[in-house]
C-alpha cells in the first residue's frame, strides 16, 4: 500500500518535473553576433539595440555571453573566416546578418556540423541548416496601398518613389506596390522615380517629374525618401498628397509639424533595426529546446497617427525609429510561423 503510494507520488513528481526538464537551461550558453557592416545609422542602431538587450540578458543569467563581432570590411570571405573563428571560440549559437546569401554557406555548414545553431536575419542565408528571419518587403509595399485605400476610398493617381535600381529590395517593394494597385484598382501609378533611399535624391527626382503629373492623391515610398518628396511638392505649391513615410527621424519630424499645423494624416512603415534582438531571442529559444520553423517573418514597425509622438520621442536625430524585441515577442513570431 505504502509502496504503491510512493510509486504514485514519484510518478506525480516526475510528471510535474517533466515540462522543466524538457527544456534545456540556456544560462551556460554563449551566443555570438556576426555582422558584416556597421557603416550607416540603421546598422549602428542595430548594434546598439543588440548591446542593450543582450547586456540585460547576460546580467540576468539568461545566457552566459552574447558578443557582437563586425567584420572590418564588408566582404563575404572575411565574414566566412569570422564564422569559422566563432566555431573555434566555442559559441553555442551564431546570429548573423550576412554579406551574401550564398557565399557563407560553406562556413555555416561547418558551424552546423559542429552542433552550433545558426540564425540569420535581415541579410539571410540559403544554407538549409540555418534559420532565417526574413523581411516580407512585398507586403511592406502592398500594405501602403491598402492604407491609402482606406484613407482615400475614391482612389486616384499615385506617385511611386523607388529605391536604388537593380537592388533586390527595390524590386520586391515595388512589386508589392503594384500588387496592391491591382488589388485596389481605383488607384493608378501615374509616375515613378528612383529616390535611392536618400532624401536629396528623392527631392530632385520628384521635383523633376512633378510638372508632367496630373493631380496626385498619394505618394508610395520605400523609406528614406518621404521628406525629400514632401519638400519637392511643397516647393511646387501643389496640394500635399498623403505621403507614406519610412520611419526616418526627419520624416517623422515633418509629419509631426504638419499634423500640428493642419491635422495632416499618414502612416509610416519600415523594418526596425532592433530585429537583431528578435534574432537573439529566437536563437535563445532554439537553444532552449523549442521547436522553431526554419523560416520566420519579421513584423514591420508601423507608426500611425496616434503613436507618432511616442515614436518620434524615441528616435535619435538623424536615426531610424526603433523597437527592441523581448522574449515574448520572439515567442509570438515563432507561434505565428506554425
Amino acid at each position, binding site marked *: 500500500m505504502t509502496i504503491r503510494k510512493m510509486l504514485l507520488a514519484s510518478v506525480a513528481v516526475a510528471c510535474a518535473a517533466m515540462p522543466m526538464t524538457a527544456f534545456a537551461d540556456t544560462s551556460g550558453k554563449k551566443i555570438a553576433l556576426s555582422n558584416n557592416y*556597421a557603416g550607416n545609422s540603421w546598422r549602428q542602431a542595430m548594434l546598439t539595440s543588440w548591446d542593450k538587450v543582450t547586456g540585460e540578458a547576460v546580467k540576468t543569467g539568461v545566457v552566459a555571453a552574447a*558578443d557582437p*563581432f*563586425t*567584420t*572590418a*570590411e564588408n*566582404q*563575404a*570571405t*572575411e565574414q*566566412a*573566416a*569570422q564564422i*569559422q*573563428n566563432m*566555431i*573555434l*571560440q*566555442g559559441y553555442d549559437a551564431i546570429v548573423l546578418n550576412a554579406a*551574401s*546569401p*550564398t*557565399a*557563407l*554557406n*560553406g*562556413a555555416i*555548414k*561547418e558551424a552546423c556540423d*559542429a552542433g552550433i545553431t545558426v540564425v540569420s536575419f535581415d541579410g539571410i542565408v*540559403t*544554407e538549409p541548416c540555418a534559420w532565417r528571419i526574413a523581411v516580407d518587403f512585398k507586403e511592406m509595399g502592398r500594405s501602403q496601398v491598402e492604407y491609402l485605400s482606406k484613407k482615400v476610398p475614391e482612389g486616384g493617381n499615385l506617385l511611386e518613389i523607388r529605391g536604388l535600381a537593380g537592388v*533586390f529590395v527595390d524590386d520586391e517593394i515595388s512589386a508589392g506596390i503594384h500588387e496592391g494597385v491591382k488589388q485596389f484598382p481605383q488607384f493608378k501609378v501615374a509616375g515613378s522615380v528612383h529616390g535611392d533611399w536618400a532624401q536629396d535624391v528623392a527631392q530632385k527626382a520628384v521635383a523633376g517629374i512633378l510638372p508632367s503629373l496630373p493631380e496626385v492623391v498619394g505618394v508610395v515610398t520605400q523609406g528614406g525618401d518621404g521628406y525629400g518628396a514632401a519638400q519637392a511638392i511643397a516647393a511646387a505649391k501643389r496640394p500635399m498628397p498623403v505621403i507614406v513615410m519610412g520611419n526616418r527621424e526627419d520624416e517623422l519630424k515633418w509629419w509631426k509639424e504638419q499634423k500640428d499645423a493642419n491635422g495632416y494624416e499618414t502612416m509610416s512603415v519600415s523594418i526596425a533595426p532592433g530585429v537583431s534582438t528578435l534574432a537573439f531571442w529566437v536563437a535563445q529559444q532554439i537553444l532552449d529546446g523549442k521547436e522553431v520553423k526554419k523560416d520566420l517573418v519579421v513584423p514591420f514597425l508601423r507608426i500611425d497617427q496616434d503613436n507618432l509622438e511616442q515614436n518620434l520621442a524615441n528616435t535619435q536625430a538623424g536615426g531610424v525609429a526603433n523597437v527592441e524585441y523581448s522574449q515574448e515577442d520572439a515567442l509570438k513570431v515563432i507561434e505565428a510561423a506554425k
Partner: protein
Amino acid sequence: MNRRISADALRLAIPALSLTVLLAAVFWLQPRAMSYVGLNLLFNLAVPIALATIAQMLIMSVNDLDLSMGTFVSFVACVTATFLRDAPLVGVLILAGAVAVYSVLGVVIYLRNLPSIVVTLGMSFVWAGLAVLLLPSPGGQAPDWARALMTVKPPLVPMAIVASIAIAIVAHLVVMRSSLGVLIRGVGGNQRSVERAGWSVVATRAAAYGLAGIFAVLAGIALVGLTTSADANIALRYTLLSIAGVILGGGEFIGGRVSPVGAVIGALTLTLAGSFLSFLRISPDWQIGAQGAILIVVLALRLLLRRVEIREKGR
C-alpha cells in the same frame, strides 16, 4: 655563392618566423584551435588565397601587377558554380578561354608597352561584368568533386595544411626549378639580357601570365569548393590580399625576386592575422589598422634585414 643562399634563406626566415609567432599567439588565446578540426577551420579559407597569391606572384615576377585578381577569381567562382557543374565541357572551355585571355594580356602589355596596372584595372571591370552576367543574384552550386576535394579529411594532417604544402611545392618546382621559371624571373630581373641570350620575351611573358591564369582559376574553384555556392563579389578582397601575401612572403615589386614558398606562408600569415585580431576581440574600427600594423612590422623587419645583408656584402 654561399652568402647568396644564406640571404635567400633569411628572406624566407622572416615570414616563417612571423607565421610561427602568430600561430603560437593564436594557440595561446584559443587552445581549441590546436586540433585537427581547429587547424582546418583556421586555414581552409587560406587555400584559395594562397593560390591567388601564387598567381599574383607570377605576374609580379615579370615586374607587372595584377589589379584584376579579385574580380577574376570571382568570375571563375561564378563559372565553377554554374557551367562547370551543369555542363562541365562548356565550363572547362570557358576557363581555358579565360586563361588564354590572361596570356594575351601579358603579350599585349609587353608589345604595346602599356602599364600593367591600367590594363588589369580595366580588365577587372570586364571580369566583374561577366561575373554579374553569369550570376545576377548570388547562387549556383559547387560541383560535387570540388566540394569533396575541399572537405576531404586526410589522416593526421588536415586538408588545409596538406593543400598549402602541395601548393608551395608545385609552385616552387615551377618557378625556382624549371627552366621556364628561371626565364620568367630573368625577364623580371633583366629583360634585355634574356632577349640577347636568344629567348623570346613575348613567349615567356605569355607563359607567365598563362600560368598565373591557371593558378587563379584553381583559386576560384577552391573557393567555391569551400563556400558551396558563388556570388559575383565573392573574392574582391583577393586583389590586395594577394599582393600583400607576395610582399609579406619576401617577394619584391620589381627585379624578379619572388619566393613561392614565402608567398604561401604570406597568405597563411594574412589569414591568421585576421583570426588573431578576432580572438583578441579588437573592435572592427581598429582591425584594419591592426592588420596594417602587422604588415608594417613584418616589412620593417625585412628592411632591417636588408641593411644587414648590404653591410655583409660591403665587408
